[in-house]
């Protein structure tokens, strides 16, 4: 159905927008952002990576690596994903997280497809790549869980990160299939019930790369905002790992509010090549998903 396609596109395009917007204020504190920008809400590039306006970072790029692998193989192929990650790392991307680099390097040198269990690898690097996994597995929850954990363990083998990936994927499924925010809220509450560390009420304002802080920021602003713009602006103005909290919050908000929720001024600023590829690959991911193949 067109609505599903619309929300899927908005999720992926939204993610890219969140990445590009948040990247300007990544590593800044809320007070630094406030004194420099007031409320930060325009895509201007810059930031610590000296980006051009509308340029995306590793968040979007790693998601595209997964999407391309699945689309070209027309099946779930962890090695194809790992190959794409390796090729991407060799291409000197604008940034790559420490934990992601370690995992990709282990694949390049030893063919490792699953990193060892590590209680410290609870960064948000695996969660930020969840969208193509959710699209390809739509609407099958079992398939989602299998793919989510497999792709995550390429770099992050940690139960807290796994739980965040799965919950995020489930919420994306629900949103894309038209669920109400209250239903999405129940899903987030379920995560908090099983892992109380994710509790985001009261919201503590932490937005670091630790997946718990990231998801608290994402949940707080996704449920508090009443539009795509409100959700995303709220998230990125928390600073810290703003490109990633922005990307994840925006993929949920895009999946929920659809393309009409995405401000034109942001969409126009985005790297045209990236947006075009996202549109193409989103259609192909959906076409290969169980939902589409059922028709």
């Amino acid at each position, binding site marked *: 159905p067109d609505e599903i396609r619309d929300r899927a596109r908005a999720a992926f395009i939204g993610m890219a927008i969140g990445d590009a917007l948040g990247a300007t204020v990544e590593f800044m504190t809320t007070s630094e952002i406030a004194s420099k920008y007031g409320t930060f809400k325009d895509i201007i590039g810059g930031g610590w990576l000296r980006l051009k306006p509308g340029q995306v970072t590793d968040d979007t790029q790693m998601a595209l690596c997964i999407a391309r692998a699945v689309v070209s193989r027309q099946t779930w192929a962890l090695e194809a994903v790992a190959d794409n990650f390796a090729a991407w*790392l*060799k291409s000197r991307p604008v940034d790559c997280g*420490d934990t992601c*680099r*370690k995992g990709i*390097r282990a694949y390049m*040198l030893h063919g490792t497809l699953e990193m060892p269990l590590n209680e410290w690898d609870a960064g948000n690097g695996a969660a930020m790549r969840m969208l193509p996994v959710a699209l390809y597995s739509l609407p099958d929850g079992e398939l989602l869980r299998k793919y989510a954990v497999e792709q995550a363990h390429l770099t992050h083998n940690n139960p807290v990160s796994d739980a965040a990936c799965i919950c995020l994927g489930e919420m994306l499924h629900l949103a894309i299939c038209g669920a109400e925010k209250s239903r999405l809220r129940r899903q987030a509450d379920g995560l908090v019930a099983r892992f109380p560390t994710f509790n985001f009420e009261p919201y503590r304002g932490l937005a670091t790369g630790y997946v718990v802080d990231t998801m608290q920021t994402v949940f707080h602003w996704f449920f508090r905002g009443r539009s795509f713009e409100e959700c995303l602006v709220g998230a990125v103005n928390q600073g810290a790992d703003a490109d990633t909290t922005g990307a994840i919050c925006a993929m949920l908000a895009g999946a929920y509010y659809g393309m009409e929720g995405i401000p034109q001024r942001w969409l126009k600023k985005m790297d045209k090549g990236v947006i075009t590829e996202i549109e193409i690959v989103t259609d192909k991911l959906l076409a290969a998903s169980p939902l589409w193949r059922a028709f």
Partner: protein
Amino acid sequence: MKLIEAIIKPFKLDEVKDALNEIGIEGITVSEVKGFGRQKGHTELYRGAEYVVDFIPKIKMEIAVSDDLVGKVVETIQNVAKTGRIGDGKIFIIPLEEAVRIRTGEKGSDAI
């Protein structure tokens, strides 16, 4: 973990860095040093100027790596830095008992 110290010819730096990048290694600390050895400093062209000196400018690279990477890193540096002419340099492997990433406090292999 080991601290790999490589003394190489300066014009080889970019090539060695690129080759290390291909195997996922990005973190390197570089210093400019003076080399004395079998390769004698006489007059040498360096950055467009003729040096009448008894040393040869070299580049020292320090790369902290986890044990499982040592072989590959040494092999990579040696293959790329080599010209076959005297003065190509050395690779030293020094034990690294602990490493700390100042920004996060992470230790061990997670620090490098």
